[in-house]
């Protein structure tokens, strides 16, 4: 069975139902709107470029066993396996990846969300605060007094 999805900028994608159902949101929508399947499902927060990429991911992972709803998922305890395909998949620029994380979050594609978060964490690792600020174009908005406080707290946080 096919399902049609519409991106925020009006592009329509047709995919297999089981592929679309990797998104928890779409799965729930399909249950509610069973009778009304001729209309495409609107995804108001996801642009066409990102949606295409999400679909590409879901196509590849269509047969993966579903992860249990992991309320307290903690990667420190059980790292998710990342295969070669996933590694290839994440070779995109970081803006694209962050858009993808947001898309995965709004569509609730859990494995992609985990993958993206690990990617984001890998970027941040091995970087100093200054380097992070440059990369993300963040302003250092600490007041001098707050800076002092952080310097002072630093002695405890390295515990």
């Amino acid at each position, binding site marked *: 069975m096919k399902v049609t999805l519409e991106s925020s900028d009006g592009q329509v994608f047709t995919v297999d139902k089981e592929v679309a159902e990797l998104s928890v949101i779409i799965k729930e929508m399909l249950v509610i709107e069973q009778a009304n399947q001729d209309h495409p499902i609107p995804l108001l927060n996801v642009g066409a470029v990102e949606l295409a990429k999400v679909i590409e991911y879901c196509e590849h992972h269509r047969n993966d066993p579903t992860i249990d709803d992991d309320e307290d*998922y*903690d*990667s*420190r305890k059980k790292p998710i396996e990342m295969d070669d395909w996933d590694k290839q998949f994440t070779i995109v620029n970081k803006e694209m990846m*962050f858009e993808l*994380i*947001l898309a995965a*979050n709004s569509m609730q594609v859990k494995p992609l*969300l*985990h993958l993206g*978060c*690990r990617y*984001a*964490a*890998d970027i*941040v*690792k091995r*970087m*100093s*605060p200054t380097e*992070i*600020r440059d990369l*993300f174009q*963040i*302003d*250092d*908005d*600490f007041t001098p007094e*707050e800076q*002092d*406080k*952080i310097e*002072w*707290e*630093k*002695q*405890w*946080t*390295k*515990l």
Partner: protein
Amino acid sequence: MLEVPEIDEMICKELSHHNLAQCARVCKKWHRSAIPHLWHTLIIPTKHQEDEIYEHQESLRNMALEDYLYEQQLHLPSEGMKPQLSPFMPPLAKYGHWIRQLPQPAVLMHELEPPIVFSQPLEMPDPEITTAELLRHVYKRCSNLQVHSLDVTEYYPFGDISKTIAEFLLPTVRILSLHISDPWYLKYLLNHCTDTLVELSLRVNIIYDATRNDKKDQQLQQESKTLESLKKLTLEKAYDDSESKSFWPWLFERCSHVERLEVVHLGQIHQILADNMLTYMPNVNEIRFGKDQHEDYILYDKDVATLLSGSRQGWKVVEFKQNIILIFGHVAQEALTKHFPTLEKLILDDRHDFWGYDLAPILLSSPNLHSLTAFAIDSLSLCSLKTWPYETTLRVLKIRIVDIPRPDLRDYEILILRTLRVVS
């Protein structure tokens, strides 16, 4: 970081303590995201970092002291008496509520003790506070601790510490291990456990009666309440040389929901345990003798029999770990035979002195048996067992056979083939 709280949370979970400390210094938003994760677990450095150990040790102690003084200062009346402190709110006061996990109390105590050598002069005034009081202060600040498992040993000064543990840790503990021999403290601590307690493990060596403190003891006796969620009781060491042996009825009365009992080293209290199990533990139906990776010890025939007689509804699971040198005679065998009707799982790990116990009676009279692990010397008896009435209920059959006589190999093949069918 991406300004969606759920996503930031997931990213933070991928980061190490060091990474998080870096992130917290990027900007205000990142600081807010990273702080809860940075303080989630208080890590004590491991011993191999010896050069830094003093620094770290003082660091944790200083953090607690700083915080303690800060709190004292709030209550001091006059300006002139206030000690000279940093103008900032100490981290424990500020972030203590984020801390979910702390090291075991014994480790924490060690870290909070005054250093033997001061590597650098203290910047703050040295307050008169005992280590036990400091420990209490730390726990008080960590108002949202999630105590998963807790080990309590009897260290000095135990009176103050036990009160702290009872107040701050026991109300949420799930797995509790007590290595205490004073029955009064045992009762005191167990009285403060709640319905969160699922597993209890004891290492006790009671040498006197708990009656030395009559008034207090009576009070403890009256506060009788069942530990509703307690399902597993482990007696790693249970010696009792007291005359009354009154601790065990007191304990078992509270363990009325226990289903699984694990015993390792028991003094001569098997009969008392069995009697109390019959009286107070109607649901107990799993028993394990011995423990993984433990030194060998000898288990006597009649003691096994005595403990096996303690289940009111019959044992479903009976396990003997492999480090037991079982002197398993006909008394224990007979006691086990009585439980064949209820038996679902029997594990006799290898190297037991299982002396060619004929497995046929077990297979023939246990209609509910789905798992059997055993060690058969008298392998011929097995071969004679071509069929048995309950073979369809059996799911797992592991038998280590010693000394297969070659001419009989064919019979073994038949047995193994049939077993495979059963397992599949």
